C-alpha cells in the first residue's frame, strides 16, 4: 500500500534519511521543517500519514499533534512521532496529545517502514 506521507523534522539530513526509507516502499513524501510549515503543507496537500519529530525550534511535534487532533479533518490521520526522546513520561505526553505511535531514534529503516505500513493498515 503506497501513500502520501508528511515528514516534519527540523533537520534536512534526517528528513532525507526518512524519505529514503519511505521511497523504497513507493510512498510519496512531503517535507516540513517545523509544526507551522506542516500545518501549511496539510492545508494544500492531502496526506495519509504524518511522521513528526518532537524537538524543533518552532512549533514542536506534540503541539502539532494536539493542533491536528483538534481539527475534525485530521482526527483520524495516523501520526507517528519519530524522536530521540525515549522516557515513559514523554511518551505519555505523546499518547495524551493524540499520537498514533512512537518510534525512538536511532531507527532502523526496515522498522520505520513496517511501522508505517501497520499504521496505514489500522487507519480508521
Amino acid at each position, binding site marked *: 500500500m503506497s501513500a502520501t506521507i508528511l515528514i516534519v523534522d527540523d533537520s534536512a539530513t*534526517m528528513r532525507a534519511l526518512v524519505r529514503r526509507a519511505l521511497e523504497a516502499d513507493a510512498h510519496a513524501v512531503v517535507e516540513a521543517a517545523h509544526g507551522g510549515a506542516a500545518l501549511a503543507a496539510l492545508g494544500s496537500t492531502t496526506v495519509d500519514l504524518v511522521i513528526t519529530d*518532537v524537538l524543533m525550534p518552532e512549533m514542536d511535534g506534540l503541539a502539532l499533534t494536539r493542533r491536528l487532533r483538534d481539527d475534525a479533518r485530521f482526527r483520524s490521520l495516523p501520526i507517528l512521532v519519530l524522536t530521540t526522546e525515549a522516557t515513559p513520561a514523554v511518551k505519555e505526553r505523546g499518547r*495524551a496529545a493524540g499520537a498514533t*505511535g512512537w518510534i525512538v531514534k*536511532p*531507527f532502523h529503516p526496515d522498522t520505520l517502514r513496517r511501522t508505517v505500513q501497520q499504521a496505514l493498515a489500522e487507519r480508521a
Partner: protein
Amino acid sequence: MIHPTEILLHVGGVHASAEPVVIKTLLGSCVAVCLWDPRVLVGGMNHFLLPEGGPNGPQDEATRFGVHAMDRLVGEMLKLGASPARFVVKVFGGASVLAMPGPAAAVPHKNLEFVRGYLAREGLRVAATSVGGTLPRQIQFFTASGKVLVRRLVTPRAQARLAEEEAAQRRARARFGDVTFFRGGRA
C-alpha cells in the same frame, strides 16, 4: 578558583549543559562536534564513530553514527533553550591514527566529509576546526565560554590503546530505538 564539573564523553555519547561544565573526550578517527549558543550560554558536544552505515552495511545505523549523533545533540541543545540560528560550531578529530586496516583506513576522511556535508545542509557555519593528521586529540569544551582546548597525544601507547578501542567499537553491533503503538486514543 572554583573548578567546573567535568564530564567525560565516550564513543556515541552526547552531552549538553546550561550549567558551566567542562566536557572532555578523546578522539582518534572519531569526530566530535561542539555547539555553543552565546546568548543563553548553553553548550553541547557529541562523539561519533562513523558517518552512517556500520560494518553490517548501510542499514546498520545507530547513535554512534553521525546523523543520529548530530540529531541528538541539536535536540538536547533545543531542550535547554538554545537556538540553531545562534550556534557557534567547532569540529574536531578525524585523525588517521596508526595504520588502520582495510576499509577502516577511509573512516577519518568519511567522518569529516559527512560532518562538512551535514553542517552545510543544515545551514550551520563552522567557526573553528582541528581535524585530520595522525595524532589523537584530547578535547576540553568549556560550556560557559564556548572555548575549546585541544591537546595532541604523542605517546605511542596512548595512540595504540585508542586505535584498539575505536576498532572494537566499529565491530560492535548497532542498537536501535523501539516502537510503541498507543491504543485507545487520546486521553
